[in-house]
């Protein structure tokens, strides 16, 4: 280009120059760590927490591109401050000794589906908070050892482990127990299935795998089914920013972590996937779908 040449500001160059210390070869280990009775290394310090070891590609994509776009797309202009919320009176007089400690629902019906979204700002742009996957294993009713296959598969898919890396909030693969007894189907407290909560980089890794390896290769899957356009969105599900869908047992074999040795697992397990976002209030479901659509999750109108 013969026209003006670009002038790159010195600020960018300066930022890359300064550093804390030069990167050199990692020091050699003089003494190996002691091992416990199971052969696992024992660290020198007690409370060691493992942090990120690399940038997460999808997370970078969210902060570089998606967040700005979603802010522009979901912005709702409000010219004046909102009126104070409507005062909902109680059904009974709280001072009356007869009704004092009774359940006292506010008059005016349920307000769940009518909750307004928070005012649009740059700080509450819709964002993925966590992903939960879970499965029910019917055979576990007879023998809980049937859960082992599902536990192994979920550990491979999620990469999560109980308090892995010293993160005490990481719960790993959890066993789901029945809440109540249903004749011939479940027994209260009996193990029924497994679930995993994913957060942070591992969550984005899972979503990448799902969107790039699993869903495109899944037969007869054109996208997550959307309800009809005239369906009521003022429901608890409509005002919560959670998008849920199910995957058939065939999908398990398409995860690369499982694909390499699918034969090692006793059977394939289907799973429910809940993609939980921070969207709330009216239209939350739509905002959550816009976010996931940006991540590449396909949606399909009936």
């Amino acid at each position, binding site marked *: 280009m013969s026209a*003006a040449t670009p002038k790159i500001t010195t600020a960018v160059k300066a930022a*890359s120059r300064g550093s*804390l210390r030069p990167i050199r070869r*990692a020091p050699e280990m003089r003494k190996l760590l002691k091992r416990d009775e199971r052969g696992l290394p024992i660290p020198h310090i007690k409370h060691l927490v*493992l942090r990120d070891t690399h940038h997460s590609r999808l997370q970078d994509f969210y902060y*570089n*591109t998606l967040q700005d*776009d979603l802010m522009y797309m979901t912005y709702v202009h409000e010219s004046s401050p909102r009126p104070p919320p409507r005062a909902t*009176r109680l059904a009974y007089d709280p001072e009356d000794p007869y009704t004092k400690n009774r359940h006292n629902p506010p008059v005016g019906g349920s307000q769940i589906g009518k909750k307004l979204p928070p005012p649009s700002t740059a700080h509450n742009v819709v964002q993925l908070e966590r992903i939960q996957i879970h499965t029910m294993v019917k055979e576990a009713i007879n023998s809980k050892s049937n859960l082992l296959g599902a536990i192994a598969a979920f550990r491979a898919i999620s990469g999560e482990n109980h308090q892995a890396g010293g993160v005490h909030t990481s719960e790993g693969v959890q066993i789901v127990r029945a809440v109540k007894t249903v004749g011939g189907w479940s027994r209260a407290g009996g193990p029924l299935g497994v679930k995993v909560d994913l957060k942070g980089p591992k969550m984005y890794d899972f979503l990448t795998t799902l969107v790039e390896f699993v869903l495109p290769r899944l037969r007869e899957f054109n996208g997550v089914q959307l309800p009809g356009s005239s369906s009521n969105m003022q429901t608890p599900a409509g005002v919560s920013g959670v998008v849920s869908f199910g995957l058939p047992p065939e999908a398990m074999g398409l995860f690369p972590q499982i694909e390499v040795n699918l034969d090692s697992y006793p059977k394939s397990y289907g799973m429910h996937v809940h993609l939980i976002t921070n969207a709330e209030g009216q239209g939350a479901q739509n905002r959550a779908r816009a976010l996931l659509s940006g991540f590449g999750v396909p949606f399909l109108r009936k």
Partner: protein
Amino acid sequence: MLPRRPALQAVRSLATEVGAANNTLHAPTPPLSTTKSAVTRSKPLLEAAVIVNRSPTITRSPSRFEKTFFQYQSRIARALHNPFPYEFYFKQGSPLEAQFNIEERSRERQAFGRLTRTMWDTTEANLEAAKLAKEEVGKRATRFTEADKRKDLRSLDRRGERNLYLVTKSEDSSWSFPRAAIRKGEFLHQTAERALYPHCGVNVDTWLVGRKPIGLYKPAEPTEGHERLVFFYKMHILAGQVEPNGSSAVDFAWLTKEEIKGYVEREYWRGVKDMLSDS
């Protein structure tokens, strides 16, 4: 017994307000315009400009601090991880296992300078098979592309880590984002879409982000006695390349935020800089 409903009064007053508002409809409305010239003088000229963005195509390189931090964390992870179940994932003596072994040894040496634990051994035959398997994978693409080497400002392959924005050069050799004046009966977002195609060709596949403008620029000096308002829209380029028509757009460039500063006028830069992403 029941507490009096305080909200009732408010509802009534609201209803009466609405009623009052309806009543005003029947009142004689003031004439829309007294004289034509008075209206045109106060009417601003509306324009829509479009910020066409090529989003980053590769992850950004970690800074020196990040690199050191990631290295340190990787060493901790490597030192403390649970033993890898080779026999669960690989058939014994398979090329895949040999390849994994070789990679694992080099990673171990890179992290600690030597092997810190007994690792599986590989036979000569396996090594050969692993080499073949590695050749099949192919070479990695570079982060510094051909366009970066040539310093080709028109290429979409340049500066993969950064957001690039399209700026065009008009006949009077001033650089700006493509823009168009609004036509009668046209929506602002339609003007924004129109701003690109007549000047920059149709061989470009784009997507307009929403139907709301992302920013407003008001030039200080009025044009021909009219105030000028330029509404900016964000657009993503998905495929294709810009072809300037030679008359209204003479040249174009794909620039990062700080490069744009050197191209446009200072006042224009002050108006648009906050609409561009820093990354």
